[in-house]
């Protein structure tokens, strides 16, 4: 697959305070800026701060399009996560309206497995880039 393939944007996803608190609880994150609004504001943030891996909530939704693409015919039930990387322009805050723009960078088949590389650009309601996420997903062969 020589060329990148862009999928339609998914969003906006409204980042809620309780969702940030729920996510912080699930990963045992301790920074008070995830839970305490007064603390977050005292540190100069506009609202509660999301943990660094929180954007997976947004990129998972837009990335699913790759596995629903009939032209590729990938089997999501055989997927394992190969790698993941985030580069932040700024932190994600409660109140952000985020849109995920998923780009399929390539699919390589090797040893019966498919290696799927995606890049997701996450923008805010003003269209400004908030972060970029790269993921490699491996669709394991049946053998």
């Amino acid at each position, binding site marked *: 697959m020589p060329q990148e393939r862009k999928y339609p944007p998914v969003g906006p996803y409204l980042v809620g305070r309780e969702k940030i608190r729920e996510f912080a609880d*699930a990963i*045992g*994150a301790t920074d008070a800026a995830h839970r305490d609004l007064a603390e977050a504001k005292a540190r100069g943030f506009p609202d509660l701060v999301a943990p*660094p*891996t929180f954007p997976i909530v947004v990129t998972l939704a837009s990335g699913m399009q790759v596995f629903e693409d009939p032209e590729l015919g990938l089997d999501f039930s055989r*997927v394992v*996560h190969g790698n993941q990387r*985030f580069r932040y322009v700024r932190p994600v805050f409660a109140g952000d309206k985020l849109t995920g723009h998923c780009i399929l960078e390539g699919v390589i088949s090797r040893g019966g497995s498919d290696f799927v590389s995606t890049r997701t650009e996450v923008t805010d309601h003003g269209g400004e880039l908030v972060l970029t996420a790269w993921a490699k997903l491996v669709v394991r062969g049946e053998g």
Partner: protein
Amino acid sequence: MEIGAQLPERTFRVTRADLIRYAGASGDFNPIHWSDRIATTVGLPGVIGHGMLTMALAGEALAAWLGDTTRIVEYGVTFTNPVLVPDDDAGAEVVIAGQVKRQTDEGLFQVDLTATAAGQKVLGQARALVRG
């Protein structure tokens, strides 16, 4: 921030209940993270933890050490081995360590992290770039 400085080693306990909680919080309901029946059907020994949960735990070890999670500018990992999470009260233990490696051309500090469970490396190339 000093090159060579080490993060204090942290041990996180992960039980089936933690996987259910993470599934709900993240929206990743892949059944290999909660059903032994389906996990074994696709060739796994049993239920495994979400790779993204392991990544988050290593990120938390770093963020707690930094004292401010927003100092993390970039963070990436490779998932090298699954974390097997048995259906008991003890669950699995994930041990996180890390070290400041160098300063980059953009003035950020590269911190390399390690994560092991049951003596196996579960993250590879786990690396963050942080503001000093």
